């Protein structure tokens, strides 16, 4: 047994008591599904972006009495891992997907206890309603939204312009990014500007979540971008820019090669390289490299370009430590 003071027997009763108390309390904490905490989660995770409770279907289904419609286990699994359930083609999940225009429910990364809390809240029938749903919808400014989308205006909390990854109709030159889906028709699919704005609030895809969680767009910014994407004029999908880009890229590379070729056009004509390779002492003459047409020798013993014996002309040009030779 250790003789360190902290491990002495004096503290054992206290430690034992504390351990027992924690063990006794743990199941209570874990089991007490808390409807109030669930309501808070429902607001924080902006579930109300897509779901109402007793207010009819939005992007996703109305959740009134959902706890009666679906088995508790199914509901629990669905709220924790909707992506996994869609992946394994759960029949109910597939049916929902079809009914709601292929709009997948995002995996919100909730713990088991959090899911329990949300289900507890749903069981109360949305008592008191959701505060987020009660807030009046913000009016978005499409011009402002376009500036945010293209990066002419920055998002207040930082974060990249949408066009880093997304393209849409109505952008100039080479359009927007191609990492993520084209957003030309997104507003139609997600129920117009307000639906899109709510959808954005949930940061619904893994990459969106990774990029934006620490620097979320403000509600007004979301509304602006949604208003821009919902514009009628955007209904034309932008043309693919990849071949124009490839052409310009090739042109740029050719220009670079031409610059290099011009800058070093004399690389093989003068200097020491060819004479050194030519091994002028051997006297062999089997080709241009072997003393055939350039041995680089001059009467004063200099090799290469510094022809002549008088004055400065036999010194190399530019800065040099080389001594003057006569």
């Amino acid at each position, binding site marked *: 047994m250790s003789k360190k003071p902290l491990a002495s027997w004096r503290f054992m009763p206290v430690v034992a008591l504390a351990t027992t108390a924690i063990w006794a309390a743990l199941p209570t904490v874990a089991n007490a599904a808390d409807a109030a905490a669930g309501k808070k989660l429902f607001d924080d995770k902006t579930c109300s972006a897509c779901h109402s409770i007793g207010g009819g279907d939005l992007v996703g289904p109305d959740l009134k009495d959902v706890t009666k419609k679906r088995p508790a286990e199914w509901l629990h699994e669905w709220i924790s891992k909707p992506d996994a359930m869609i992946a394994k083609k759960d029949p109910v999940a597939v049916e929902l997907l079809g009914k709601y225009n292929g709009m997948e429910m995002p995996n919100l990364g909730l713990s088991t206890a959090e899911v329990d809390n949300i289900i507890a809240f749903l069981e109360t029938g949305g008592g008191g309603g959701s505060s987020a749903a009660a807030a009046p919808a913000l009016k978005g400014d499409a011009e402002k939204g376009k500036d945010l989308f293209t*990066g002419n205006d920055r998002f207040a909390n930082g974060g990249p312009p949408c066009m880093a990854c997304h393209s849409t109709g109505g952008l100039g*030159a080479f359009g927007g990014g191609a*990492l993520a889906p084209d957003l030309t028709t997104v507003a139609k699919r997600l129920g117009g500007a307000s639906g899109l704005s709510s959808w954005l609030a949930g940061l619904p895809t893994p990459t969106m979540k*990774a990029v934006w969680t620490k620097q979320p767009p403000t509600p007004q910014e979301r509304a602006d971008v949604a208003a821009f994407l919902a514009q009628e004029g955007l209904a034309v999908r932008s043309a693919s820019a990849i071949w124009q880009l490839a052409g310009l890229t090739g042109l*740029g590379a050719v220009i670079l090669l031409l610059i290099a070729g011009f800058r070093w056009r004399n690389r093989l004509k003068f200097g020491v390289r060819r004479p050194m390779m030519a091994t002028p002492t051997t006297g062999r003459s089997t080709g241009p490299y072997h003393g055939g047409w350039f041995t680089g020798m001059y009467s004063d013993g*200099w090799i290469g370009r510094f022809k002549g014996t008088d004055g400065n002309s036999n010194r190399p040009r530019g800065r*040099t430590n080389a001594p003057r030779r006569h």
Partner: protein
Amino acid sequence: MYDVFLFAVLPYLAIVVAVIGGVHRYRTNRFSYSTLSSQLLENRRLFWGSVPWHYGIVVVLLAHMIGFLVPGMWSSLTSTPTALYTVELIGFAFGFAALIGLCVLIVRRFTTERILAVTSPMDGILLVALLVQVALGFWVSLAYRWGADWYIDTAVPWLISLVSLNPQTHYVSALPLPVKAHMLTGFLVISLFPFSRLVHLIMFPFWYLWRPYQIQIRNTVRSAH
């Protein structure tokens, strides 16, 4: 699961291999820190390989480094569409030049008899690894544009999390396959560092930029004086 290994373990392994291997090679075989230049053996095709390759890859690598070291500055550089298109096009052109140069170098190495005589298996492995890496990077930048912009908010936070010893794979785990492959082959190339002529990267003779010219004279010329 794979993501944790690929994006939180593999990078550290690659860096450890590169650092320990590099130090070991420097202590035991210092004079092998070299490009093993073959310029004296073949000079004409070397120019059209080496020059586009090095100028291209230096510019592209610098862009990656600046984005990683000063992400704020880089994201303001790409903030308007016009600036973004300009930066991207410059990057495309230099990246493509690097790709052309690399292809010339590969053809040169395996078709010139004199060069083939001094080619080791590692040269082949390195050239193939670089070709895969550069071709993937070029494809990613073209097909998953605009990388100059999204790099700052996906790969950079991941790299910073690696540097701060708190790896966060969720920044990159949902990116398209070619993008992830480009990141992984990047670390593969880093791990090749101590085993190949890549070691010349840290031996770049910066003093060449300000030292005086050298004149080289062959003193075996019989007829001199």
